[in-house]
């Protein structure tokens, strides 16, 4: 089946989700590349927690999980 890239809306939702629940930090300018790596790591961390296939990317299953109603407490201990 064709693999669909995440939409801009998905990317925004994912960043908001990862900041809220996985301590993703805002990185801009020369640090932006580190930011991409950090997001890969945070997505992987989330996928491990929910026992999804660990891809580090915003695949269908990961986005589906991010859209489910949930508790607002982060999954990683603050």
């Amino acid at each position, binding site marked *: 089946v064709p693999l669909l890239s995440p939409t801009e809306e998905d990317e925004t939702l994912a960043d908001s989700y990862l900041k809220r629940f996985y301590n993703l930090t805002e990185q801009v300018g020369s640090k932006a590349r580190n930011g991409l790596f950090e997001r890969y790591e945070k997505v992987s961390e989330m996928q491990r927690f929910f*026992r*999804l296939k660990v891809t580090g990317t915003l695949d269908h*299953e990961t986005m589906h999980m991010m859209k*489910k109603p949930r*508790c607002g407490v982060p999954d990683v201990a603050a």
Partner: protein
Amino acid sequence: FSTFQNSPKWQTNQLTYRIVNYTPDMSASEVDFSIEKALQVWAKVSPLTFTRIYSGNADIMVSFGGREHGDFYPFDGPDGTLAHAFAPSPGIGGDAHFDEDETFTFGSSRGYNLFMVAAHEFGHSMGLSHSNDVGALMYPIYQGYNDPNTYVLPRDDVNGIQSLYGPNSDVNPDKPDPKPPTTPDACDPTLVLDAVTTLRGEQMFFKDRFFWRVNSQSSTAQQNVIKTYWPELPDNVDAAYESGENYNVYIFKGSQVWALSGYDVIRGYPKSLSSLGLPRTVRKVDAAFYDEQSRKTFFFIDENYYSYDEARKTMDDGFPKRIGDGFPGIGGKVAAAFQNQGYTYLFKGPYVYEFSLRSKRLYRVLRNSYFLTC
């Protein structure tokens, strides 16, 4: 289970709570009842007690608020985040906040059941963090409605709260509480499945209140709670199959059958088994599968099976037959069945029998782990 960093916990077992305000979604008495029952979930299995106060500062302050509500952790409007709570500490510690933009409910109707949301949040109030056990109350995703009067805290959560506070020493040994439910493990060699079906290219394996999804692109079986996908479906289903005629999935429990179109239950269901043409004496279907070649569905009931013509929507004449007559080498009852890549798989106990319907030959005896990779 997991606890917060440094495992904060209350230094006393006698805690107080106060309901600061109410949601307009429910009556005040329904909110009171839901909150009290949610706290009792934890009190039943620990030495903790909860006393309600009506003014001043309580250890656990319960409130409803929307968006920015005074704690620098704003809510996000409808859906998404439903509530949050703070780990034990003085001041805001232990407090539970519910997003007023949600629709909270007392029963099982559409919306979020306040009892279930509150019971989860109070786990945080006691010092538990999120669990990655999909069956645990402390799993971060909303898991649907449970009856507050019969809800039994899962084993993972019992282990969590007792790791902080110990067990409840007041439990009457003559009237022990119901055994905490555990989450089935795909790797358990003794696992006996309830039902198996395909759903639009995926395979679904049902057990208790859970099901595993397996698709060809994923190497792992993803475990889910049935009610998070289909709130109307019962737990502990008996049988399931996907019709090759209309691609609906039919789920059986007792004398009823539900029809699913993707993730929606089709209006008008559940129906009785007799609506399929099964005799009224049939009280339960053990297993079912659709045969692509003959376009028939086979229903396994005790030691017999029936053939159902999907195109004509009638039972075939000459049935029931003994399972061993149609499936030589397979005796007794079948627990679950489905077809994959032209083979028929019949599940009995922890074993799977790979069978060819054309040659009527049994090819292999496998373990559940053949499909539920773990």
